[in-house]
């Protein structure tokens, strides 16, 4: 029997394949395609202190092997999440993790406190890396002191597993990773999107209403892999890796680089089945290579 389950900061995931925040809704939209219970976990769309309308349309630009988005954390706020959405999804047969966002430390803390009360949410993912909001968001994630401060503030109120999602738009990802670890994070998630821009040469205008937006998709995979590798070597806490994962081979690369689990993001848009297909592909790889336990892949990159 091949073991696919991984334990991350005390939480057992039935397999290391999860879905990235903002690319999987609240999981409900995928039930037409497959049973979300087949996944290790689901990271739901960012939740903020109150309702946000997000940025103006256009919010998307296609780029070479990737896309830019500037959604800007559109969501109906944490009260709505607790009241309306949580009851609908809490009994999914997989771990639901809430992506917590905000513009101020107080907002992060307030959302985390409310999510802390939800019994079937074993962890939150603190999004200190959203490039698409004017205040807060990525700003927190690019300055080590601020990253540590917001992590610590949330740590003080949040009693379950605290994951922090890092921004790749930094000179030294390991410096941020260490600061966040010092702040009390249990797990690091990386990477969020890279800040980019697209221009319509005919109209001589930016394509996004916000001019710049966040780059995701296979284009960023080499950068994501490098950062996961660097952070895995620099900190002792587990890392969840993502950025451009489209298939099982990509997922395996992240595990080898040191990720204890992976998230599937943009790939969900192109193939709603991408994440379950990755579970299957991972299983096939392990069997073909006679690896009994997926944990034997994690960080197993040979560099001699």
């Amino acid at each position, binding site marked *: 029997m091949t073991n696919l389950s991984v334990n991350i900061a005390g939480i057992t995931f039935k397999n290391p394949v999860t879905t990235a925040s903002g690319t999987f809704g609240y999981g409900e939209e995928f039930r037409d395609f497959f049973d979300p219970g087949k996944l290790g976990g689901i990271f739901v769309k960012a939740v903020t202190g109150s309702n946000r309308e997000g940025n103006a349309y256009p919010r998307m630009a*296609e780029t070479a092997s*990737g896309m830019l988005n500037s959604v800007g954390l*559109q969501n109906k706020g944490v009260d709505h999440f607790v009241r309306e959405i949580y009851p609908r999804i809490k009994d999914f047969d997989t771990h639901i993790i809430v992506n917590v966002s905000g513009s101020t430390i107080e907002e992060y803390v307030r959302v985390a406190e409310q999510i802390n009360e939800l019994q079937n949410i074993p962890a939150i993912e603190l999004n200190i890396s959203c490039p698409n909001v004017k205040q807060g968001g990525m700003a927190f994630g690019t300055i080590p002191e601020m990253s540590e401060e917001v992590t610590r503030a949330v740590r003080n109120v949040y009693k379950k597993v605290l994951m922090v999602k890092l921004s790749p738009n930094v000179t030294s990802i390991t410096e941020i990773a260490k600061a966040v670890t010092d702040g009390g994070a249990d797990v690091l998630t990386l990477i969020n999107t890279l800040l980019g821009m697209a221009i319509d040469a005919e109209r001589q205008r930016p394509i996004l209403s916000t001019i710049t937006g966040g780059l995701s998709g296979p284009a960023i995979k080499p950068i994501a892999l490098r950062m996961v590798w660097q952070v895995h070597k620099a900190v002792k806490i587990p890392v969840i890796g993502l950025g451009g994962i489209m298939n099982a081979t990509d997922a395996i690369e992240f595990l080898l680089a040191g990720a204890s689990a992976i998230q599937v993001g943009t790939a969900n848009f*192109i193939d*709603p089945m991408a994440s379950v297909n990755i579970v299957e592909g991972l299983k096939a790889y392990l069997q073909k290579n006679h690896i009994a336990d997926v944990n034997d892949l994690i960080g197993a990159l040979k560099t001699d």
Partner: protein
Amino acid sequence: MEIKKTVQDLTVARNISLNNRHFLLDLIAPEPLPLMLPGQFVQVLVNDSPTTFLRRPFSIHQVDYPRKSIRLLVQIKGDGTRHLSSLREGEALNVLYPLGNSFSLPSVKNVLLIGGGCGVAPLLFLAQFLNQNRIRPTILVGFRTKEEVSEIEAYSAFGDVFITTDDGTEGEHGLVPDHSILQKERLPFEKIYCCGPDAMMKAVARLAALHKIDCEVSLENTMACGFGVCLCCVTPTDRGNERVCVEGPVFNIKRLDWI
């Protein structure tokens, strides 16, 4: 009623060139088609086009349940549609469908359909659907030029067809909203359904508002997912930013901030 979405390999049964910018694609499903409504769309995965990363949305132009076949009307815009234009019979095309809401069934009888460019795509399906509900609509369609005027016979089967061309080579000369049937002091229509370029839809919406005619438009915002999870396709409505791929693509103009 909730329609289950599916992602399937359909088979290209025919690829019919209408002119050098437009073609029809007939796609056959491996199993009975799900129920589809006029205004809904599909998301097509374009293979082998290095510059086409995301799926491409197209309205459902016609449905043939017995043959398990749907027809798309596609205008060549960029690399994605160019690749689709060279699909050959028998090739597989991965399609995610059916997506979006639909035009509403009108409670009135005097209905006008207005389409411009490939915005006519959903109107044929709608016209047929109206006929099945004993409504024979007036259909006003605009094209760039005579060579692009097509499928008029198909439309005529379902309603009275009026044509404009931008260059006046067929039908009336000018843009769709300028057609003479729309220039009367009182318009004989109780409901307008419109689909086409934004500027055209806005002009029609203004006209409808002026004449106090109920009007639905079908938006074509750019999409990443097409099934509600990315929040990229939103449009401002009276309930805030709504997803064109789920709450739309069809919106009553009353709900938009257009006028």
